[in-house]
């Protein structure tokens, strides 16, 4: 004998709505997380843009190797920062996870909820960060080249710049999603009783 019940559903539109509500209501926390993403991504995209521009203008000097190191390190720090704030964000909501489970939420639903939130922050932070970084990467080259020289070259290679923008956005989203997945998965795996008992 068994109960013949349909599997619980969690439609994407509701996942997105709940994640969005959470970002809106916990705005300050979300801003801090987004700032971390913006800074890391802006730094990376500024350096890459600078390197690209120097190459396009056939300048004698290139970007020094140590600067790539700096980008790598800044990305790691950025990743650490996002993981930390996501850990806190998940921890704060373990009881809420317990409630979701009580009303039929599956583990995968809960991971989905957090990943959706991370994706929104990742896209927002990545877009702003890449935009700021690329603009700055171009702006610092105005010291070296005149605007009249620089502008046509950049316009010719607009597709490369757009590609760079896309690349930075993807990095941002991937880092944020990865940083969220680990704590979210761990919290989602708790039994509902454990999650409800959880004290922060």
């Amino acid at each position: 004998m068994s109960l013949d019940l349909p599997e619980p559903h969690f439609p994407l539109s509701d996942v997105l709505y709940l994640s969005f509500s959470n970002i809106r209501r916990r705005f300050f926390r979300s801003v801090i997380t987004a700032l971390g993403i913006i800074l890391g991504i802006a730094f990376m995209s500024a350096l890459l843009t600078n390197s690209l521009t120097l190459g396009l203008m056939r300048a004698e000097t290139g970007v020094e190797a140590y600067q790539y190191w700096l980008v790598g390190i800044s990305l790691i720090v950025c990743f650490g920062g996002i993981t930390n704030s996501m850990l806190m964000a998940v921890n704060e909501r373990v009881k809420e996870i317990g409630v979701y489970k009580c009303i039929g939420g599956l583990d995968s639903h809960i991971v989905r909820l957090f990943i959706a939130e991370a994706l929104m922050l990742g896209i927002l932070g990545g877009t702003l960060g890449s935009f700021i970084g690329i603009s700055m990467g171009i702006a610092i080259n105005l010291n070296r080249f005149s605007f009249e020289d620089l502008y046509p070259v950049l316009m010719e290679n607009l597709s490369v710049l757009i590609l760079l923008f896309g690349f930075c956005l993807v990095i941002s989203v991937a880092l944020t999603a990865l940083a969220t997945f680990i704590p979210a998965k761990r919290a989602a795996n708790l039994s509902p009783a454990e999650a409800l008992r959880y004290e922060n």
Partner: protein
Amino acid sequence: MTEEITIRMENVKKIFMMGTEEVQALRGINLQIPRGEFHVIMGPSGSGKTTFLNMVGALDVPTEGEVYFEDVPLSSLNKKQLASLRSYKIGFIFQTFNLVPVITALENVSLPLVFQNYSREERKRRAESILKRVGLGDRLNHTPDELSGGQQQRVAIARALAGEPSLILADEPTGNLDLATGFQIVELLRELCQETGVTVINSTHDLKLIDIADRISWLRDGEITRTQEKLDVSITAADVRIN
């Protein structure tokens, strides 16, 4: 025709490991709760009330013994089936309300219906009508932090009922409320139980609930010392030494 049994517990034991020490939270519970009954689990804190409800609500797994939900042994269900069971068959009410803080009362009540795959309009319609029934028709779009404790618990009751469950588990629903509000809340729960025919298991250490219950089980140190009809209740000094 025998009466329908919502919950049957057979020798349910639960042992927690606290470090290396074993703690017996439940020491062999045997109980049958028929459909539509308002059953009160009465016991002091630490007597195993929450553990008891966790077993019945499929939130935790017994160390030994079996819980049957409408004759289905819970140990025969996998994780997804247990989630379905909780979604379609059980409503939970907690001492600390446990509403989702970032969304409105209406959205909180709609939440169980999301998992049951109702359309957006149908969810809204149902959630609205239940919230009106619990007396919050004018608070639909308030978030939990804009509601008083009693109002939050009403939202929680509405949420528990929204999915039309056959069983409601209320874990000290009055524990965080003042006396008058707490009494209103259990009265409401009682009324709704009679209207909808849903079975209610309510844990408490509040003796006032004796008046409301159909049957009362006295839980002491993980054991049910006796189960009695309301009319048979006579309280001894040992019972009152609660908390």
